[in-house]
């Protein structure tokens, strides 16, 4: 069977010079591993755990976006804000024409029926109209306030996002500093050993 036809487990682990007996070495390796497994020194769980152990790199803070408006307000750029229409919309087109016909036909009866309350109703309608006009005016004056508030909310979201981003960056920075401290600790330990070795050399020389 050629190496290509073999499964990864069956294919030879290594190649070497012709005078080296790869087969015998592989058999010896397998035997020793089996012995260790049989004696319980080496467990399959441990082998799997180490072979499958993956590196857990710290995230790159350059990959954390500072602005996340596009995620919070998707499609905002394509569809810009449109002002609210507060003017009452009347029926138009065919409906308006049909209703107009009915209204004209029924108008004499309506006038007759409403005659006793005509003045009251007229006053009421005028009053309602005035109130509506005032409300409309008030609402119109509120539109910029609402829009401004919306921008403030967005700013607030971004501020919170940026604070979270900065906190995450600080955490990553802290982890990196820990690594650097570990490296410095190792170097300090090595230098201590070096110092002892130099002192020993000096002592032996004197």
């Amino acid at each position, binding site marked *: 069977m050629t*190496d290509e036809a073999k499964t990864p487990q069956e294919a030879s*682990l*290594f190649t*070497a010079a012709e005078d080296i007996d790869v087969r015998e070495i592989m058999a010896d390796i397998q035997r*020793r591993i089996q012995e260790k497994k049989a004696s319980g020194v080496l467990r399959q769980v441990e082998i799997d755990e*180490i072979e499958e152990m993956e*590196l857990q790199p710290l995230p790159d803070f350059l990959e954390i976006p500072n602005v996340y408006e596009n995620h919070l307000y998707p499609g905002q750029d394509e569809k810009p804000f449109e002002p609210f229409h507060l003017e009452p919309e009347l029926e138009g087109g065919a409906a308006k024409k049909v209703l107009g016909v009915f209204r004209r036909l029924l108008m004499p009866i309506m006038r007759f029926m409403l005659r006793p309350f005509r003045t009251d109703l007229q006053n009421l309608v005028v009053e309602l109209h005035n109130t509506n006009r005032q409300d409309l005016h008030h609402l119109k004056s509120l539109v910029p306030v609402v829009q401004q508030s919306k921008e403030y909310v967005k700013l607030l979201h971004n501020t919170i996002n940026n604070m979270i981003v900065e906190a995450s960056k600080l955490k990553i920075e802290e982890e990196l500093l*820990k*690594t650097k401290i570990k490296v410095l600790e190792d170097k300090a330990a090595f230098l201590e050993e070096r110092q002892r070795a130099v002192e020993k050399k000096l002592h032996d020389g004197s």
Partner: protein
Amino acid sequence: MKVHQFLTSYSYGDAIGNEALEIRNYLRDRGIESEIFSLFYHPRYAGQIINYKEYAKYSAAENVVIFHFSIGSPVTKTFLRLPDRKVMIYHNITPHHFFLDYHRVLAKDCFKGRVELKNLVGKVDLALGDSRYNESELRELGFAPTGVLPLVMDFTKFSRPMVPVIKDIFADGRTNILYVGRIIPNKRIEDVIRVFHFYQRHFNANSRLLLVGEYRGFERYLSALQKMVARLENPHVHFTGHVPEDELISYFRLAHLYLHMSEHEGFCAPVPESFHLDIPVVAFAAGAVPETMQGGGLLLQRKSLLETAALCDRVLRDKSLREQVLESQRRVIRGYHRDRTGRILIRHLQDLTGNDEALNAAGDSSS
């Protein structure tokens, strides 16, 4: 005629930088004017390396410019615009995916490097790879003519004595397993650590792992490795960081076995260095590693961490096997000589320039 070299980065102790320096010295020894121009360089070499932007003063159509290409950079654009005859030495570019989780800028530069490499097709007079593996990549991309210029290996530095203090600290009877190289993701240091962990826990408790190499710029990778070491609860893993050359030589001399699990290599200089120092090598067959080992040492065909640990143990315990491995390495190392690479370079340059007097004279003196 003058032969100058272009680099993106000249780092202290870096294989490409060393190669450029060796080529420059080799050419200067043979009376050919040669300078090194680089975008970045270690302050230690401030007097020896010139900023690549100053090359305009040196440029001439009859000159040859050798560009050591290994990453995307603005140097490529400058190189392409030169009127000089252009030679590229391709040292391979690490696939960018290795760096995605750890170094976005380098991932981008590696990606850009592959794009720039394609842009260089048809625009250089000669494309050389420092291994057949690299040359085959160049040919696949459409470069012509191509050739191989083996990495200049200067073993004379290993004749220096060991640093006594390092010897005192690490020559304490423990078995030293060594890895030399940058602490970067494509080198799969996590595999080296896990193999060592199996070895130390189940085959030889009296052992340590020495990871010798620069980790600056890859602190997040180092941090992840340290976390792994902490999870394994193994206190015998030592990260030395970048060390001066004499200390590096000491670590090599103290090593009982060299372990390399990298998944991408354009050449892998520590392997022939270990061969030279009679250190048995166990290395994973990735990239140009099989070609660099040329049948010497033990070449892993698949990654099985426990079996690799058992193999390391067998090599370290079995004297006759160890001797066989070392003999196979000695056979290979005879082919690596500084002069051989120099002669190949001169031959390539002669082919490129025709009958140049300076090169012919240099060729005569080196033959």
